[in-house]
């Protein structure tokens, strides 16, 4: 670690939400009930579609919105009735929200000025943060004279200058172009490693979630679908919602029926061995399907999309759409019926009613091991 690394370092605080609810009015209940605990220094990404209550959640932690019920604990201290400045949080906004009439240095130092920090110390802290974020040459400029990436860096600098225990980000990268977004992701990850503040990062972009998060909290209509590591969320989605939300292209979901020995599609094709009976939703990722001669599952090809590194095939199976990702160079006859095999170890089964995952559905003890081979 260099001297800069140690100069800005937060005392990370844990965050606990207990029975938190939020309703803007009787008709708009945004968060019906939320219980979640974030560890100190953890980088949590809150992921969910637009309008699911991510910003509301973040602003309740920050103190910009009141909770309608429940408790928020930061570092073990109940804060739900405190003003934002007493909570030890700092926030980075989507539209930067920099003060247009202040220079970069003034923007970053404003919170210190309000807090009554001396001019000399302010200048020192600004210099440290500016060096850390590569803004040293822009301190005298106004936000209007900066590029989008630089502005976002100023916004981050403004947030970290007070060394907050909690850093909150509300879709901070969504106004940047693809290349810059990637660069900023790398920088943010690096910054988090160096500063160590507990971070809550709101986004609707799954790539940001997968690359930045220690744990991802997937929010849907104000309730938690799943809260786990990126790996676990990708490989063991807890619900159809999560399965469809993570992965690009998203997981295929097929309606299947169990007849006691196998899962069948509507047209009678067997896709897996399964001991149970009833209607289910079967999930399989496009990359877990292979096209090969003699494959037991048949589908009609509709459309193919060559992405260079791989190809996406859009097919039709028993009246349902199916996406298949094939490796580059795979020989596929676009006119004929596709012969497919589903990777049996990577099937996901979901309850038809609750849409929740059925764990260990394809446990070796439940289905005959010999026949599993048959469908690969």
């Amino acid at each position, binding site marked *: 670690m260099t001297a800069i690394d140690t100069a800005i370092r937060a005392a990370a605080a844990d965050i606990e939400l207990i029975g938190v609810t939020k309703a803007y009015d009787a008709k708009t209940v945004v968060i019906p009930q939320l219980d979640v605990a974030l560890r100190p220094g953890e980088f949590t990404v809150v992921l969910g579609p637009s309008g699911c209550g991510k910003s509301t959640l973040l*602003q309740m932690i*920050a*103190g*910009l919105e009141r909770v309608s019920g429940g408790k928020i604990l930061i570092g073990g201290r109940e804060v739900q009735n405190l*003003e*934002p*400045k007493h909570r030890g*949080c*700092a*926030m980075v*906004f*989507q*539209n*930067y*929200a*920099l*003060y*247009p*009439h202040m220079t970069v240095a003034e923007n970053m130092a*404003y*919170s210190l000025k*309000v*807090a009554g920090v001396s001019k000399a110390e302010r200048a020192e802290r600004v210099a440290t943060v500016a060096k850390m974020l590569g803004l040293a040459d822009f301190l005298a400029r106004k936000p209007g004279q900066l590029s989008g990436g630089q502005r976002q860096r100023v916004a981050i600098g*403004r*947030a970290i200058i007070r060394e907050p225990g909690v850093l909150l980000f509300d879709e901070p990268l969504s106004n940047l172009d693809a290349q810059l977004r990637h660069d900023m992701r790398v920088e943010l990850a690096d910054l988090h490693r160096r500063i160590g503040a507990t971070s809550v990062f709101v986004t609707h972009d799954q790539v940001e979630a997968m690359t930045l998060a220690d744990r991802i909290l997937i929010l849907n209509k104000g309730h938690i679908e799943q809260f786990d590591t990126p790996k676990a969320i990708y490989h063991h989605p807890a619900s159809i919602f999560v399965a469809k939300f993570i992965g690009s292209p998203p997981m295929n979901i097929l309606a299947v029926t169990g007849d006691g020995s196998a899962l069948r599609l509507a047209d009678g094709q067997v896709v897996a061995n399964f001991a149970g009976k009833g209607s289910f939703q079967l999930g399989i990722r496009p990359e877990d399907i292979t096209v090969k001669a003699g494959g037991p599952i048949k589908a009609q090809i509709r459309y193919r999309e060559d992405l260079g590194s791989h190809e996406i095939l859009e097919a039709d199976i028993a009246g349902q759409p199916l996406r298949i990702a094939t490796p580059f160079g795979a020989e596929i006859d676009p006119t004929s019926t596709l012969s497919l095999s589903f990777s049996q170890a990577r099937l996901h089964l979901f309850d038809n009613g609750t849409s929740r995952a059925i764990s260990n559905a394809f446990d070796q003890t439940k289905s005959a091991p010999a026949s599993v081979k048959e469908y690969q």
Partner: protein
Amino acid sequence: MVENARSINIAASILLIIGIVYIVGPLYLTLSTASQSYEYMLRNGLAWVPGGELFANMGKVINDTRIPIQMLNSMIVAFSNALATCALSFLSAYAIVYFRIRWAGVVFALILATIMLPLDIRVITTYQVASNIFSPLNAVLDVTGLNDLIANAFGAPVHLELSVLNTHFGLIAPLVAHGTGTFLFRQFFLTLPKDLFKAARMDGAGPIRFLFDILLPLARTSVASLFVLTFLSGWTQYLWPLVGASTPDMQTAVVGLARLVPDADGQVPDFPMIMAGAVLVSLVPLSMIALLQRFLVQGLVLSEK
């Protein structure tokens, strides 16, 4: 340019010249008349050529009339009007935009209604209120029957009386009650990034600090243009100062100018002196326009949006 045809150009130029003559003509006549003597005017009628008596006429205005004190009144009225309007509009727009107020929409609509009911229409009721600013309260007490109760209990109904007619306050207050400024600032605040207020709160700045550290510096050109516009409108007000002030020492300069024309028939008014007074009275707004032209243009653009 949409069209470049020669004939259209010529027509446009002629139209422009007519317009200029229409506007500049009377101004020229004012100046040329102001620079001639009373005797010259009696002999020749309208003064089409300038003379050398301008300063003599102005001296007459300053020494023989109440115009100087009336200009001071105008200054007090216009300046206070501008200052109070800016402060009040700024604060009410701040409240409407940045705070979750119950019935904020209704309040804003009521403020806007003042734009549709200018002082000129309300002049009689305004006069009634100004002659006793407690009259609305008295009326409420009478209508609700509270006064009967009070009369029973204390022997006499409440009847408060305070007139602000013929005071500076009475001249200014009705002019301030106008929603244009609130509307202007509201529109301006809505163009600012929404998260600015939240960012400031996160930085530890309360509503007052946000107002002074962030909103006011950002809005300073809007404030300046509203100030210039309301100052000019306050300076040139005619109807309300005419009604609201009765003694010459309390009247404003524009009203004073009109009063320079003698009421008695038969006597030819001293038009050169009156015109010199008009020039004198116009100097303040003119120099203001010249100096603060930038804000005036911005204000017009803003209020047009």
